[in-house]
């Protein structure tokens, strides 16, 4: 049991914290209200190496470990949850599977520019009829010579409106169910790739997502990730990593909410004393701090296991489930501590409350995490 971070992990965390304080926190409210994608700030984040934190330097990444990556996402999300998920998707859902399953040729074209942050990636798994039950894919890819002809619809695609590349899941054999799923990597400029207007969401409003139609889109067979039928395995193993990113994002949101509530409690007075003098408030803050610490330990453990190269499905699910539900609860308490001000768009508390809510839904709902955990429990 070693409690300290490495020099490198600490350095990245501190750099991200400083960056978030300077470049994200002061603007996050505005971006949220205006539903504006913070392209400029992202560019600066990419300059810090946040495009591919755990991608090897050989392929344009920062070459750090997943613990460092989780710490970075937490810090970024504390500044702006939307930016947090934009980065998490590029790192975990796009770069990670390309690095793991891509050929050298694919990596050259589809990994290096993304890990460097010159381009942005997204992940196309969810469909209108296939969310938690991801094996119910209806987007088809039919092989015609050395290309595949892709038709179908994906939705809730985070980064979809702005992404340059996509890791896309399709059915190459509908009769085989999960075993008929095949993954591709391609540019969003491919003819037949039709993005729809951005979704209007409850929270993470500065992170654009959209529905995408594929109409007779031709994808060369050389852009297939892995073999035909490997798609489901690729998707699930990718999500094991993605859940670490979302767990970290949730903690970042929760921490922002906690810190603001703590600071507010010291200046807001009721009955002649700062409300932080009332046990009702103190104990809420104590529980928030405790649960956030527990959540971070779960997330870092999952990241650490990923770094050891061992299976971490259960630990990732636990981390994501616990961190996201904690973030929700913490953000709720933060609104409560702020009272009426917590309900006002003047303060950040209400944004954290809206932003936190998604973490229990995307990259596997809380219910799916419980399915994963209990399946392993009952094995």
């Amino acid at each position, binding site marked *: 049991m070693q409690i300290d971070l490495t020099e490198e992990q600490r350095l990245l965390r501190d750099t991200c914290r400083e960056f978030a304080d300077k470049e994200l926190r002061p603007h996050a409210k505005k971006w949220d209200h205006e539903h504006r994608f913070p392209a400029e700030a992202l560019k600066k984040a990419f300059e810090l190496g946040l495009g591919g934190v755990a991608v090897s330097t050989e392929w344009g990444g920062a070459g750090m470990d997943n613990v460092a990556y989780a710490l970075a996402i937490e810090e970024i999300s504390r500044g702006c949850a939307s930016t947090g998920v934009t980065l998490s998707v590029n790192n975990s859902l796009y770069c990670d599977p390309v690095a793991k399953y891509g050929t050298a040729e694919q990596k050259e074209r589809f990994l290096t520019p993304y890990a460097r942050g010159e381009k942005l990636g997204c992940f196309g798994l969810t469909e209108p009829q296939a969310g938690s039950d991801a094996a119910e894919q209806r987007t088809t890819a039919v092989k015609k010579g050395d290309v595949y002809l892709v038709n179908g619809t994906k939705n809730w695609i985070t980064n979809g409106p702005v992404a340059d590349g996509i890791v896309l899941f399709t059915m190459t054999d509908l009769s085989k169910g999960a075993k008929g799923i095949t993954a591709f990597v391609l540019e969003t400029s491919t003819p037949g790739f039709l993005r729809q207007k951005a979704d209007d969401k409850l929270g993470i409003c500065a992170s654009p997502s959209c529905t995408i139609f594929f109409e007779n889109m031709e994808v060369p067979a050389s852009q297939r990730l892995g073999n035909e039928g490997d798609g489901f395995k690729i998707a699930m193993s990718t999500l094991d990593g993605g859940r670490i990113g979302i767990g970290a994002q949730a903690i970042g949101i929760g921490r922002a909410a906690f810190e603001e509530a703590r600071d507010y409690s010291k200046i807001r007075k009721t009955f002649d004393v700062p409300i932080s003098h009332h046990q009702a408030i103190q104990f809420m*803050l104590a529980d928030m701090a405790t649960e956030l610490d527990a959540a971070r330990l779960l997330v870092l453990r999952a990241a650490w296991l990923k770094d050891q190269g061992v299976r971490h499905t259960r630990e990732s699910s636990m981390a994501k489930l616990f961190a996201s539900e904690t973030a929700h609860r913490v953000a709720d308490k933060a609104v409560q501590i702020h009272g009426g001000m917590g309900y006002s768009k003047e303060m950040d508390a209400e944004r954290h409350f809206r932003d936190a809510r998604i973490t229990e839904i995307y990259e596997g709902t809380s219910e799916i995490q419980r399915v994963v955990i*209990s399946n392993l429990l009952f094995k």
Partner: protein
Amino acid sequence: MFEPSESQRLVRDTARNYAQAVLKRIAGDLDRESRFPAAQLAELAELGLMGVNVPEEYGGAAAGAVAHALAMKEIAQGCASTAVTMGVNNMVAETICRFGNEDQKKRYVPEITSGRFVAASFALSEPQSGSDAASLLTSARRDGTDYVLSGSKQWITSGDRAGVLIVWARTEAAADRPARGISAFLVEGGAKGLHAGRHEDKMGLRASSTVPLTLEDVRVPASAMLASPGDGFHIALSALDGGRIGIASQALGIATAALEESIQYAKDRRAFGKPIGDYQAIRFMLADVSTDLAAAQLLVLRGAALKEAGRAFTREASMAKVFTTERANRACDVAVQVHGGYGYISEFAVERHYRDVRVTTIYEGTSEVQRYVIAREVLK
């Protein structure tokens, strides 16, 4: 980062093997008969578990605070009553090692670690002084080269079995700063004037001994004082920081036992044509329990690792205790629910776990005191 070391694993496995082979089998009987596990405690001493974090020169295993936490969890998984007795023994031995002089350490610590003293006690609480420990009233009056102790103590684990007790008493009636007038003394079991009252009839932990004590002019030499006059409160709080990790580990052990029994039961018990473990209602409850316990384990290990590194860990110990004990209570409640009617009868261990775990949010600092400590730290 998150894996125990080789030597920590060794201590954990030693405790696990003993708990599973011996304690688990007899825990139900010990509970029903309110029988103090004297023989088992002696065996734990032989295994080196009565001074896990005590230097070797005093008979300890010198395995550190993390190993101690792991061992406590394993023992509690077998028998929670045995675990709390072991936990208090370790806490007393550690406290003497930390604050005692050489004579005191040589005289008492090897007795505890070897098992020659079946138990040791930590006599802080009083009938009117629990969470507010600084309000204690037991007095220590100087009389020549001696101190004479008078007063009452309450909820003293192993109080009638202890070879040595750390007794907190007031050497000064400081009205303004009550904590500063408190000193700690080493009192030997059987000392003249030290009377143990009747065993408390408790909801759980029925195989551990809990008694009130009366000190009727108990005379001890001045050399029986731990550290200096007025150091008592600091000694108590610092011992409790460590103790809280021990109690959190105990709660984790009880809850882990409850979870494992629930999984097994859910596989065996059928309803509407299939095992109840096939229903999401049951599976999700247990998924939450196992997630909570994983988080709790990490909080406990973090607290223990900080302690082992000699760093500040007050806040982390309180977080570990409040989180673990409350989630462990929930875990045992879920276990009873999963067992249905069978969870309510003493033939099944979960009924005992449910009673045993309840005290963990109370002793060695209630959840409310933990929240007070954490809030003070986060609002600094």
